[in-house]
């Protein structure tokens, strides 16, 4: 089955996910190299490009981290090709050191950075805004507002990048990246560029000289000229649009997916003839003349954007300068409290802000009596659904063991968390049993633990543990581990090796034998890296409960330096595991002690694999065969031997 992403026909219309639309845009632009680090909601861009790498003659990789991915993509640009790198919002912060130098050195082949943000942190532990990098580092920023634009603007971003010889940022958000819509395809180019790095020319020559950010002031000057050029282009950009009446009572200024919320709100309120929408696709540098023309249409302006008032601030600054000619405008937005500057927006929020400004309160989303009835009837019947480790998940077993070992050790040890599925352990009901106490960025668990591990001299007696996933290990743990080893920090790193980047959907990483494009690749072994750093490593299976628990307790008692334990067991959702249950699991009701002294529902009250239910009538545990993944771990924790497992046929 050929992916529709490389359908040759121009003008065909497909339902594409925002991320796929971005990929198609890159393909239409003739991209040769695409790199990224997986992170929700960005991962499907690289994933879908992987699938067409062969037919499309692309080089696609999942890099070890975001910074590396940007460097690889930059090399492609230096060699004259077009390249793309992708990451989630905070990935830009990881890559930013390189990004700022790259922005100063400039590029050759068109290069774009697509970063997908997560307003409301639907799948993140932050909702940081990376749009601010554009003015900070002085590079252009584009924000597609629907699925068609996701494709078209991506394609155009490459042209812009080549035009100004600098990297261009393209911002998506969860609702766009993971949403889907109709997209009409454009043409695919049929030639690919030849890779060649020209570096023998005059050193300052942008096409043949050195690629370098010095002489700094000279290059900085050049960079600002590029931004000036972008500004001129943005004045005429078809992606900056106005729709609405000639003299709107209120002007909405917006960007990204909020554009669709604005349109919906106008339609819901029925104010199409009184409200206009100024949508910025090319958001930074803001084109001043274009802006001024539209600001002049009205006196009341409502700024609609996620998450922070990025456009709001910049529009106001420009408006202040224009005030002598244009007059003073009234701005509504986050600073006036019409919108929150946290979380994501939706059509209802725009309706209410716009309604407030226009004095309309006739809009009824949900009839009041219905709402009352729904609340009265349903609110007590909708038990909250906390996230939890999947059935069969090795992390549940790992944290079970870490918890038990720490309890037994009895010195109030704790775990510094890291980013991955196992971050869920910080929410105790999800299966972390309350052991994880800190959680920050990729690799920071090891860094923090390395700090704690040095505080013996100040009286710290608690054992310090940290966990990281296999992918996280390559991403950012290694430097922190080296630091801890060199400084003889007293800590234990537990690598929860589940054989893939599970959180984001099994992308490849350097520990695997297959790369993103499905080619064979040398696996970089975590244990051997640790040994080379000079750490003692042990490897256990978290499903061997007793042996692994004993190992953790023993490591806790070795109070010398850094110890590494690799807990190796494949993720329950991994393609190879999902297919087959290892065990058929059932409960022998005659043996199940249920709520009695001797068990008191250990499996459902404490262990809480979603595969086991508690039958409140019978007062017995019950396996839900649809959900149970067949790992069989619960049979080892049942004190009554009531959970029976048999090798599945």
């Amino acid at each position: 089955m050929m992916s529709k992403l490389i359908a040759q026909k121009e003008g065909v219309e497909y339902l594409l996910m925002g991320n796929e639309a971005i990929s198609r845009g890159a393909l239409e632009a003739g991209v040769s190299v695409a790199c990224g680090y997986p992170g929700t909601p960005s991962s499907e861009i690289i994933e879908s490009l992987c699938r067409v790498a062969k037919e499309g003659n692309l080089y696609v990789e999942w890099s070890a981290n975001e910074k590396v991915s940007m460097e690889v993509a930059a090399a492609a640009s230096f060699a004259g090709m077009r390249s793309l790198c992708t990451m989630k919002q905070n990935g830009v912060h990881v890559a930013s050191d390189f990004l700022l130098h790259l922005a100063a050195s400039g590029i050759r082949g068109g290069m774009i950075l697509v970063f997908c943000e997560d307003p409301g942190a639907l799948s993140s532990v932050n909702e940081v805004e990376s749009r601010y990098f554009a003015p900070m580092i002085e590079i252009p920023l584009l924000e597609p507002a629907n699925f068609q634009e996701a494709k078209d603007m991506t394609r155009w971003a490459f042209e812009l990048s080549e035009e100004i010889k600098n990297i261009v940022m393209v911002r998506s958000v969860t609702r766009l990246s993971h949403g889907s819509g109709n997209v009409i395809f454009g043409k695919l180019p049929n030639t690919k560029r030849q890779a060649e790095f020209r570096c023998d020319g005059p050193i300052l020559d942008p096409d043949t000289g050195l690629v370098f950010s010095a002489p700094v002031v000279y290059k900085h000057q050049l960079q600002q000229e590029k931004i000036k050029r972008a500004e001129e282009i943005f004045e005429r950009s078809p992606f900056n649009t106005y729709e609405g009446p000639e003299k709107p009572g209120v002007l909405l200024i917006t960007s990204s997916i909020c554009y669709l919320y604005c349109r919906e709100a106008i339609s819901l309120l029925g104010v199409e003839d009184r409200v206009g929408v100024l949508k910025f696709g090319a958001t930074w540098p803001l084109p001043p003349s274009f802006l001024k023309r539209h600001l002049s249409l009205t006196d009341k302006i409502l700024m609609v954007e996620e998450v922070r008032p990025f456009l709001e601030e910049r529009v106001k600054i420009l408006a202040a300068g224009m005030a002598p000619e244009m007059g003073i405008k009234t701005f509504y937005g986050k600073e006036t409290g019409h919108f929150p500057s946290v979380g994501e927006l939706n059509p209802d929020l725009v309706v209410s802000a716009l309604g407030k400004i226009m004095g309309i309160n006739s809009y009824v989303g949900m009839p009041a009596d219905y709402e009352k009835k729904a609340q009265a009837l349903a609110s007590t019947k909708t038990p909250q659904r906390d996230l939890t480790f999947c059935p069969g998940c090795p992390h549940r077993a790992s944290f079970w063991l870490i918890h038990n070992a720490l309890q037994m050790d009895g010195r109030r040890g704790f775990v510094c968390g890291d980013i991955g599925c196992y971050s869920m352990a910080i929410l105790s009901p999800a299966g972390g049993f309350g052991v994880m106490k800190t959680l920050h960025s990729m690799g920071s668990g090891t860094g923090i633990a390395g700090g704690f591990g040095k505080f013996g001299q100040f009286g710290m007696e608690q054992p310090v543990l940290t966990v990281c996933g296999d992918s996280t290990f390559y991403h950012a743990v290694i430097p922190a581990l080296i630091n801890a080893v060199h400084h003889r920090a007293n800590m234990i790193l537990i690598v929860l090796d589940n054989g893939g980047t599970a959180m984001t959907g099994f992308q490849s990483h350097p520990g695997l034998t297959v790369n993103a494009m499905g080619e064979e690749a040398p696996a970089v072994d975590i244990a051997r890296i640790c040994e080379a750093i000079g750490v003692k490593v042990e490897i256990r299976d978290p499903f061997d409960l007793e042996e692994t628990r004993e190992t953790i307790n023993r490591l806790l008692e070795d109070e010398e330096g850094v110890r590494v334990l690799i807990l190796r067991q494949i993720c329950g959702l991994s393609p190879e595991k999902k297919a087959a249950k290892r065990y058929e699991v059932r409960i022998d009701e005659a043996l199940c002690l249920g709520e009695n002294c001797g068990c008191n529902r250990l499996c459902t009250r404490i262990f809480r694999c979603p595969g086991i239910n508690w039958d409140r009538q019978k007062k017995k545990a019950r396996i839900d065969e649809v959900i149970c993944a067949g790992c069989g771990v619960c049979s080892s924790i049942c004190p009554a031997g009531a959970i029976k497992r048999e090798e599945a046929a």
Partner: protein
Amino acid sequence: MEDGGMGQRELQREVIDTHLCTGCGACVGLCPYQTSYHDRIILLHPCDIKVGRCYMFCPRTPTNLETMRKSLCEEKDLTPEIGAVKGFYLTRATDEQIRKDAQHGGSVTTLMTLALREGIIDTAIIAEGKENFLHRGVAVNDPAEVKKRGKSKFIVSPTVAEFNRAAKGEAKKIGVVATPCQVLALAKMRLKPVPVDEGNIDKLKLVIGLFCGWALSWRGFMELLRKKTGLDAVVGMDIPPRRHTLEVYTKDGTIEFSMEEVNSCIREACHYCFDTTAEFADISVGSARLPGRWEETRIWNQVIVRTQRGDDLVQLARAGGLLEFREAPGEALDELKKSAMEKKRTALKSIAARSGSSPDLLYLDRFDPVVRMLQG
């Protein structure tokens, strides 16, 4: 005891957090919520059962000793100081090898081996010494295995946990060697305070109690030992009567620790212990208190026989020539009673200090006749 709870929460509040826990292991192995690690009892996960066996069996939760004396012993045998006395002897093993591998006279090992051989029990639960003094209870069926595990372990072994485990299994008739706190736990179980698994406790056919002045805390003792000698060098220890020292036998000779040094490593729970002679055992055994040099007298045991089945076993050993008997000096029993009373008195003082009020005796009942006698 809030809203009448007698479960894990109360166990934690009244026993674990207050350092009354003896590490006996009575609360371990019944359920997945408690376990023992080193010499400590660990609460792994919270359990919210209102009346739990952990609490009901624990020797440090409130206990009506008077009911226990009356239901487990013959009233005519009862003494306030050392419980029921049916007979009092000085004995030692006739088998020299047993004596050599034993703490004192090897009487315990002899009696346990005999009980197994005669089918009085099919499983013996005894303490096994492990490296680094991390002892544990083991269940054995072969008399030869008992002989391999002589000698006292002065850091607690969670022996009752092993009883709990064995009772759930194949074993039908179980004998246990236990310290006084462990004997008390087993006695509480025999009164069946909760209607779960009561069939299991009926498997308990023999309890041999060890006299006990106090036991050591693992962490404290390890630190003390490390200061004076390597851990590997230790081959045994003892607490000679009257001398107020702890002797540690090493490959290079005996090291003596003064009571001052040892005091800091005594398990805190032992300060609150009311029992020297394992009053609710079938037979209780300790070191002999004889005139003469300790080095010579230590190969004898004092034995209190308390129950009919205890007496039957001791007589069987006498008849079989397995135990050698010796006339006990007249003052031996009195001396024992005196020292037992002394321990009780100190315990009451420590308990009152712990609870902060002298009428609050924590697990002990201030209306208990022996307690009242001591308090005058």
